[in-house]
């Protein structure tokens, strides 16, 4: 039997919960429920929904595909090299997303370091296109995958690697049959956080990919525009975003965090 928590701790916990839930609940009070369907079936909303879901899912997959190898590598590094690599990778988590978007322009823009080469070779332009949205989303989502997965990999007892090796496992077998399955919860959590971060991404997207309805306007951007022109629509889209997030949270809860 665990004893009760001190009254002060319980009060503060209540304050924390109230602080987070109050804005969400007040939002629900203002939603024009009767006109919800009409508001959400407008072209602006359906376009934004499609762009948001596609770009965030593709970004999450890309973040996993690139982040897991980097996490595997980083978990074996030590010393200054690992500190520097980790600092660079974590930077997009801390950076104001607008700065990230500007940096993306300098790298992947029409005249950017990488972007100019890509354009010359393939004719592909990232800015103001859906590929730009995906790029911006991946940029901000990747660090979450790397940090989550690397932490889990580092927590694995290194003797598991020794055990697998004495049993004749080559590096590929050790990686795919032992290490990655052992961090499966972290892979799922990393992918999920990456997707959630991409779905909510605003600053880097608007800076790098612009805000073109039907091409690069995602749900958060649509909310931003609607807030100035049509408050009811903004509320309706907000409810949509909250609903998507809640459905995913609830359906993933068993696998993402332990449920007693």
């Amino acid at each position, binding site marked *: 039997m665990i004893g009760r928590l001190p009254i002060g701790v319980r009060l503060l916990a209540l304050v924390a919960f109230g602080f987070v839930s109050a804005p969400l609940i007040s939002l629900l009070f203002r939603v024009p429920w009767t006109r919800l369907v009409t508001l959400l079936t407008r072209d602006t909303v359906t376009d934004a929904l499609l762009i948001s879901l596609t770009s965030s899912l593709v970004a999450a997959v890309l973040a996993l595909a690139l982040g897991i190898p980097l996490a595997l590598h980083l978990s074996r590094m030590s010393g200054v090299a690992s500190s520097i690599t980790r600092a660079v990778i974590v930077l997009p988590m801390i950076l104001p997303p607008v700065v990230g978007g500007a940096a993306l322009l300098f790298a992947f823009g029409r005249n950017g370091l990488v972007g100019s080469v890509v354009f010359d070779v393939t004719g592909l332009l990232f800015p103001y296109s859906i590929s730009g949205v995906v790029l911006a989303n991946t940029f901000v989502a990747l660090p979450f995958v790397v940090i989550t997965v690397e932490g889990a990999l580092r927590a694995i007892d290194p003797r598991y690697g020794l055990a697998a090796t004495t049993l*004749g496992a080559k590096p590929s077998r050790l990686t795919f049959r032992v290490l990655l399955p052992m961090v499966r919860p972290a892979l799922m959590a990393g992918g999920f956080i990456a997707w959630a971060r991409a779905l909510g991404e605003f600053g880097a997207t608007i800076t790098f990919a612009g805000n073109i309805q039907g091409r690069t306007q995602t749900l958060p951007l649509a909310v931003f525009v609607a807030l100035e022109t049509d408050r009811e629509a903004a509320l309706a889209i907000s409810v949509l975003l909250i609903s998507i997030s809640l459905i995913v949270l609830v359906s993933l809860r068993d696998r993402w965090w332990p449920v007693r």
Partner: protein
Amino acid sequence: MNSSSDLLLDARVVLQRGDLKLDVEVLVQKGETVAVMGPNGAGKTTLLYALLGWLPLQSGWILLDDETFEAPGQDQVTPTRERNLGMVFQDGLLFPHLTALENIKFGADSQAYVDDVVETLNVKALLDMYPSELSAGQTQRVALARSLAAQPKMVLLDEPLALLDIRARVDARNLIRTALQESLAGALIVTHDPADAFALAQRVLVLEDGQVTHFDTPDQIRSQPKSRWVADLMGWNVFYGVAHSSSILLANGTEIATAESGLAGDTMVMISPSAVSLFLEAPGGSPRNSWQCRVQGVQNIDGLARVSLDGPLSIYADITSNAADELGLTIGRECWVTVKATEVRTQPRSTDP
């Protein structure tokens, strides 16, 4: 002693790890089980890791079945994966996301061999279970099965029974012995427990502070301890004194005679409790090594009485419970303690800091 074709492992491991300076030479014959014993921090696990190639040698060599893994002047060190050495960890270290069967098959090439080890180690009922559902004893049986299924030339076991309760220990020990005999592989088993060492091993290597103090049969080590740690482990009486030719003078003035001669300097004296005789009357003549002592306590275990005595010498004597009854040994009783000079073992003190 043996022809070289019977030799499985020939290794000299020299390395520094923290404060520990390890310098061990170990030979294992084909089919032989060698136990590695020693106090905590003596370098037992370090030795296993070095043999596996997980820790680099500073100097020395490792040869297994005429294959050279590491040797002076050899640039290429054989990687762990190609050494054909099995490893069983203290906590089993089964892959938690795989069932017992998937664990056992992890390194196996032959299904027939998997079936064999499953049979020998009696794990058939456990095959569909995950490691989190297994008891400590079951875990170790599966861990040994996993290791043997890869058909190693030699198995290294690091305290495989340490986490088991006493009952599971006896069962697991018997299964391990059978499995090691059937696999015909050699084995090096690190253990704290003399019972494990004596039940499983043909020879025992005692490692103290990175150095080998014994490498001999269990009987030799039991009857001829050379170090304080082994003497304590076997329950021997240990005294310290200064030797002059064939006798040792203890700090309290008591003198112990030995059958040896030419001794000098600080010396450790070891006397087996079973070599101590007790009499109610002073022995006739003037025998050396007899002292009048007082009984401090008597413990009866399975017909054997361990009598602790105090006097010129604080000493334990093992006599039969019947003899203890006949002598009427009760606490406070005076009696004579005698030890034959030929039963007194000595060891220069310098080897035992």
